[in-house]
């Protein structure tokens, strides 16, 4: 009986969390947040150094 109650409380918490996530647009994508990017980027886009720029690319094919 206590298991059922614990499960119900847990399940309701999951559903509430899901509702909050759906409303707030949660997703699993990992993004890197950078604060206070200067507006001068718009004039000189090359001055911005994204952390993904050293990504090793797939160059294969079968």
């Amino acid at each position, binding site marked *: 009986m206590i*298991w059922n109650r614990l499960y119900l409380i847990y*399940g309701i918490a999951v559903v509430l969390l899901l509702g909050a996530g759906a409303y707030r647009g949660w997703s699993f994508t990992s993004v890197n947040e950078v604060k206070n990017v200067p507006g001068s980027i718009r004039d000189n886009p090359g001055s911005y150094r*994204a952390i993904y720029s050293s990504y090793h690319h797939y160059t294969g094919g*079968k």
Partner: protein
Amino acid sequence: MSPETPPQVQTLACPHCGAPLTVRSMGRAVTIVCGHCHSILDAKDPQLKILQRFEAATGGESPAIPLGSRGKWRGALYEAIGFQVRSMEADGLTYSWREYLLFNPYKGFRYLTEYNGHWNDCSVTTALPEADGIGARYLGKKYKHFQTCTAHTTFVLGEFPWQVRVDDAVAVTDYVAPPYVLSSEMAGSETTWTLGEYVHGADIWKAFGLPGIAPTPMGVYENQPSALKASAGQTWFACAGLATAIFVIFTLNQLFSQQEQVFREAYSFSPSSTEASFVTPEFELKGRTSSVEVRTDADVSNQWIYLNYALIDADTGQAYDFGREVTYYTGVDSDGHWQEGSQHDRVTLPSIPPGRYYLRVEPESDASLGTIAYTVTVTRDVPVLGVYFLALAAILLPALLISWRTYNFEQMRWAQSDHPMKSVGGGE
């Protein structure tokens, strides 16, 4: 009879060894067993005729509830007056259990049985059960056949309201409906039915004031109630309700998410260009904080293009960096046509606040490849399916775990029966 009232007893002497015998059941005893020489005596005979003598193993069996112990049990004061050990054989192994006879002058007799720390409170049925070998029915309750065996009495002590003998054999059939067990004992043409209810040793220890603590039960007993079984059905009921709630949230999210396209622009990238990075015009994310999908459609064929993206809030300078690769290869070999990758990519950024944004884009590709055309599309408030699958898994896993543990418990229970359950692996 109360704890303060001295029990009414009669003291006799064993005709074989002269040891004092205490009779507690006041004329209801049919046999008395001398605890000193193990002579089984006819209590109805004024001369206490010796019916049988048996040799007890050194150390013998010692009752956990000493004879003469009194305790309040099921609302009445009972005294332990008899003790017997019975055994059965199965698969070449001998299994023994202990039975304690309790007596109250107004309530009569009842029994406590113990096997491997599992206790049952038993009393003779007040009506005749209906049994067909597969199951039994008693007072409207159904019982499943558990096992049929031959039980031999191997040790007796105290007094009994029936003719007891060591090596007595009876055919015992147990039917279970946890926490109850319905047992028939057949000796010759006489059948006795008893109803037992699983009880905790700690309750017996407390009731009879026994020293120490009750031994911990070993394994799963035939009528031991499962702590999880009652929960399993209710858990699946709750699981269905929670899954419905998840489906409702999903439907509402699908219906009311705006999926508003806020930006779309086509570009081309020449890998030989010296400065590839650029920023897009501003676009506005309205409404509440929500997901933002960035879709890239690139005209690549046996090519790749990698795009460093930064979604930047024009007012606060808050940037969200992410990188996406669009790669598509195709060809023909000895296995026929093949293809890898896709010309389309989409990513959903989590919880982006409203505001004016622009994208900083920095494409990369192999310098030896030609110009690549691609389109960037930004859409806000897009449903994310993954969180629904995660939520479903989160509510399913505990329910599955509870069911699995319940199944294991029942499998252990029925492994001791005449009807063992088949294991998931196919064995028994």
